[in-house]
């Protein structure tokens, strides 16, 4: 589904990713762990198409198509989603209106009929229950006055609504208490199936305990230095990262 080959990229002429190779197949959940500044978020931003990052060499293919020249909205319509590390507040833009606009954009792209306001309300109320969010958040502006935990739940709510093929979870565990973490992880786990893939970016093992990734990769200084299964996460929790550094 996602195939990254020898990716070199950076920002303002500074190289951050120094040759990433990563293949994610349908149904797999991969986790990327690493310290601050190792390039984890850069990788997520490049896959989703944020401006100001330069790819100097390498390729990213999604379902066999090169996505590097695609606009961010086109990548999203093709099935790529990112749960933001810092979800953005958008004053004056109603959360429900935004969610419906996003879903309709996707339905239209697939040649399907757009959903009307009443049907959308029924749909979104179901999804809200899955992440244990109060309905009051629907009538607010996007992320406006949301606590850290509610913002992250709102990200997962969007994922459940838009049903992407590839979901990138950028530090979705940061700022969450234990209860919220469980709810978010449960939301992701219930959403997993043989068609959907995930890339979870995290510092900590605790999210992974709930999600049970198929593969764990350790990113140090822009390179994947080690890959393995759940046991690697446990090893990192005990030993830290220094034993992997050259």
């Amino acid at each position, binding site marked *: 589904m996602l195939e990254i080959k020898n990716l070199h990229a950076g920002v303002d002429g500074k190289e951050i990713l120094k040759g990433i190779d990563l293949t994610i197949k349908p149904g797999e959940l991969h986790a990327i762990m690493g310290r601050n500044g190792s390039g984890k978020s850069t990788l997520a931003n490049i896959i989703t198409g944020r401006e100001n990052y330069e790819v100097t060499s390498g390729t990213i293919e999604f379902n066999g198509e090169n996505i590097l020249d695609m*606009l961010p909205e086109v990548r999203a319509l093709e099935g790529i989603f990112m749960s933001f590390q810092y979800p*953005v507040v*958008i004053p*004056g*833009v109603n959360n429900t209106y935004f969610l419906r606009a*996003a879903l309709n954009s996707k339905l239209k792209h697939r040649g399907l009929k757009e959903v009307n306001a009443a049907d959308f309300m029924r749909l979104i109320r179901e999804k809200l229950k899955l992440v244990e969010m109060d309905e009051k958040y629907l009538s607010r502006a*996007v992320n406006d006055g949301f606590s850290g935990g509610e913002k992250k739940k709102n990200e997962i709510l969007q994922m459940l609504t838009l049903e992407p093929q590839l979901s990138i979870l950028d530090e979705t565990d940061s700022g969450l208490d234990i209860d919220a973490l469980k709810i978010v992880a449960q939301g992701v786990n219930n959403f997993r199936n043989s068609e959907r893939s995930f890339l979870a970016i995290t510092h900590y093992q605790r999210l992974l305990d709930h999600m049970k990734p198929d593969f764990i990769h350790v990113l140090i200084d822009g390179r994947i230095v080690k890959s393995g299964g759940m046991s690697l996460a446990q090893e990192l929790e005990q030993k830290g990262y220094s034993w992997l550094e050259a």
Partner: protein
Amino acid sequence: MKQFQKEFDAFLEHFSEENPALRDLRLKAFNKFKEIGFPNKKWEEWQFTDFSLIKNSNFRLSWNSELSTIPKNIPGRIQNTYLILIVNGHYQPRLSHLPNEVSVEEGIKYFKSNPEVYSIDNSSNPFLSLNTSMMNSALPIYIKNNIIIKKPLQVIHLTTDLSDKLMNHPRFNFHIGENSEATIIEHYIGSTSTSYFTNTVSKINLEKNARLNHIRLQEEDRASNHIADTSYTLDRESQLEATSISSGSKLFRHNIKLSLNNEGASARINGLSLTMKNQHHDQHIVVDHASDSCQSHQLFKYILSDRSSGVFNGKVIVRKKTKQTNADQSNKNLLLSPNALMNSNPQLEIYADDVKCSHGSTTGQIDSEALFYLRSRGISKQKAMELIVSGFAKDIIDHIKNIDIKSYVSNHAFTWLEGSMKNV
């Protein structure tokens, strides 16, 4: 100046039978206008706006006899409202539709009983004097005590079908009696391709415990000049909710004065300015807290695209010995183009201790983080920008309580937005 003198002389000749006191006032006002002259760059309160176009354009007055046919469908008509219609400066009583409780008096009658309303003595604004000298549609709209008018009253000042460059000096007096309540829409619309000049003055008076929603819509043609002077006087416990939405005119200058003259008066004055191409919008607001326990809230937003420019100058004055004043003032501006320009100057002048005051101003562009966030959900860049910009304007529109007015304004703002975003 020659042209203004010529038009003034013609005006006096045309209305030679007019009441002598009013005639004296006109002469006095015109002399004052000549004495003050047009603002220039050295005048601090007027420095950011160039008035040479008005000075040199040779505008002439409009006469009732040359009025062309009035369009069947009046543009800008808002549903479920009463109507006062003025076309090219001429009041159309037959096409207007008023509730029984509202009287549109003859200007002269109101002038005789309220001469102070027409005083120009304390003003250095040349356009107020100019207006007073040639005010031709002086409409006093009078609401007596203890009357609640549920349906809004829409005053449409329409400029249409011009063959010559015309000027008009409309004068409105809105009087809301004790314990009375009303919603008044003061609506300027232009649909003509000829340049014109509207120089309007509105005096709005709220008696004890009166409540007024005042919606001012400025949708003049973009080839026009619109100069306005709005002053609100609030008596004890009266409440004003004012919203000014302006998208028209090449040159727009609006002076707003709010006088909180007696205890417990409160006012909210909001403004939204939408500019594109080479439009210039200049608004000066003075809020005068002259009594105890008064509140004032101001929120002015500008959305500027292309090469347009804006000026916001807001001043809150809290007079000596006043108590329990609560005042805030905020100016927020969104630049949609690197060539758009905004000049913002919020000021506080506080001469009392017992006050709660705040002010602030921000000017920025569309938040790139917000834009990426929306696009990452599959929303196109164009649509995402529209969402962000309409979100920026939303709190101003949300303050309009009446649903028909709100829906008119949001449609108008959205149409403007779609038009302006095409060039971004």
